[in-house]
């Protein structure tokens, strides 16, 4: 509608202008259009990237002259227990989060993909509520709900006669509790992504399969999973990036404790900054990039070669 109106309007006074040279030549226009992006990109992405790279080979505490130390920062990190520990914590969290999320997410998406399902839009809203609420707010709610002495979760356990659990105060439970927060917060988003993959599958494929007598679970295995593989792969890569960069959740909920059991790779990186050890922090950034990109490539490869 508005297009027609717009076109009509430009026709009105266009007749006289078309013979004149346009004020913005067609060859120049695209450069002007990308200019704001390029300017900000160079200022706030390219320049900082190159700066980090240089910084990672120096010893610098934020003031004075930076001292060139070659590969020392990298060597220090690669031999450092805390660095490996933080990667290990992130890997453990990944194991607790991503497989669960893919299975539950796919199950929910398949159920929601049924047009005859009652209360479909209620479910879509309900599952997305944690995703749209501010992370800091929900992380705080987590702190209160999972409190060992006064929390609602232990209150529920006591109701059925179970003892208190130190959800955030013991190193065995802190990680799963954090993983649960992440699962709760982001599974709705994954459901929507997987749903988009399912909706791109033609309904006639399923109709043909049910006429041939294929059971629901058989259909899930033989049709849904293979055809939705692209979307599955996308969500696995997305969540891998997110888990290894996880920062705000442990920062607010556990501050990395108890006994560093929830010091994620992202939080560890931040600790270098707060200590003012910027050279090591920069080197840690790049090691983390290498890990994350490597993992992403592995998953892309794994999920693709099965075709």
């Amino acid at each position: 509608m508005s297009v027609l109106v717009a076109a009509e309007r430009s026709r009105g006074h266009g007749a006289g202008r078309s013979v004149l040279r346009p004020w913005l030549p067609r060859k120049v226009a695209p450069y002007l259009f990308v200019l704001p992006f390029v300017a900000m990109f160079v200022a706030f992405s390219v320049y900082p990237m190159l700066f980090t790279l240089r910084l990672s080979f120096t010893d610098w505490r934020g003031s004075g002259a930076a001292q060139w130390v070659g590969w020392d920062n990298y060597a220090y990190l690669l031999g450092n227990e805390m660095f490996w520990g933080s990667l290990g914590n992130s890997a453990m969290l990944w194991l607790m989060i991503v497989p669960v999320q893919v299975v539950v997410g796919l199950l929910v998406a398949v159920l929601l993909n049924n047009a005859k399902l009652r209360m479909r839009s209620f479910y879509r809203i309900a599952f997305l509520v944690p995703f749209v609420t501010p992370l800091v707010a929900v992380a705080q709610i987590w702190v209160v709900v999972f409190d060992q002495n006064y929390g609602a979760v232990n209150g529920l356990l006591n109701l059925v006669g179970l003892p208190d659990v130190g959800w955030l105060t013991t190193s065995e439970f802190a990680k799963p509790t954090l993983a649960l927060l992440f699962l709760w917060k982001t599974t709705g988003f994954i459901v929507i992504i997987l749903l988009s993959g399912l909706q791109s599958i033609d309904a006639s494929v399923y109709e043909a399969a049910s006429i041939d007598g294929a059971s629901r679970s058989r259909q899930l295995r033989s049709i849904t999973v293979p055809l939705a593989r692209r979307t599955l792969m996308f969500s696995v890569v997305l969540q891998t990036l997110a888990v290894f960069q996880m920062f705000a959740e442990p920062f607010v909920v556990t501050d990395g404790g108890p006994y560093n059991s929830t010091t994620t790779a992202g939080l560890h990186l931040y600790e270098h900054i707060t200590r003012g050890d910027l050279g090591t922090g920069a080197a840690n950034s790049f090691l983390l990039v290498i890990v994350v990109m490597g993992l992403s490539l592995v998953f892309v490869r794994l999920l693709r070669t099965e075709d």
Partner: protein
Amino acid sequence: MTTRTARPARIRAATTRALPTALGSQAFLLLLALAFLAPVAWALISAFKPATQIISDPLGLDLTALTLDNYRRMFADVPIGQGFLNTAVVLVAKGAITIFFAPLAAYAFAKYRFPGRDLLFGMVLITLMLPTIVLIIPLLLEMKALGWVNTYQALVLPGAVDAFAIFWMRQVIADVPDELLDAARVDGAGEFGIFTRIVLPVIRPALAGLAVLTVMNIYNDFVWPVVVASSERMATLQVVLSTLAQNITGNRIGADYATVTGELLAAASIALVPLLLVFVALQRHFINGILAGSVKG
């Protein structure tokens, strides 16, 4: 959607057999949905309970004892009004930049051939893959060098022209028929006029999705604001919130656990309600926004 009128008898039989599974899936979805809503609902309700009751009886609800004390104390204790104001300023400025300049760049990438285009778009793709955390240290130093620490510029400009937004809008604009643009050109429309008068109106549904997603991201953004603008005057809503939580995890000396918990739930409630309302009101745009943005990944 699909019409399923005259179905063969065999399929109808299969549907009847599927009835118990349908009930099962309803029960499963309902339980899961309640579990997803419970923490937020619990916080919204508990914020109105007397602070001591929140911790002595976290599951109970005494309707006669409901109070606004937690809110009153929280407002007195932390600069949450200032936090809202700062978030609003950043939201308007950064949101406007993203929603205008990302489609503009995307338009050039989608509809023009020019030397350097592929190189520039390659940069967009690389930015998409880079963990944002890598840029935090150097960006902070850059902000220090510019004297921008604890300023609105620092909160608004970095990340304002988001690579994901460009990537997504390029897909959307590529689907706008060239004939439409050429017709406007023949009629004498300038290159920029084509963008504002043809492209933007045509892609309005996707723009709405982008707007909702952008608002959500900016409103919830935490890492960059806490690093670059944590002073009391510049703290955004999320940063103000995080200081309250640290009073608990960091064992603020002398802080009464019940009081802080009450304040915390009040603050969390007040922070999540605006976004929740926006989300429920614009739910369709939002979901379509995510769907349209993610399939291409």
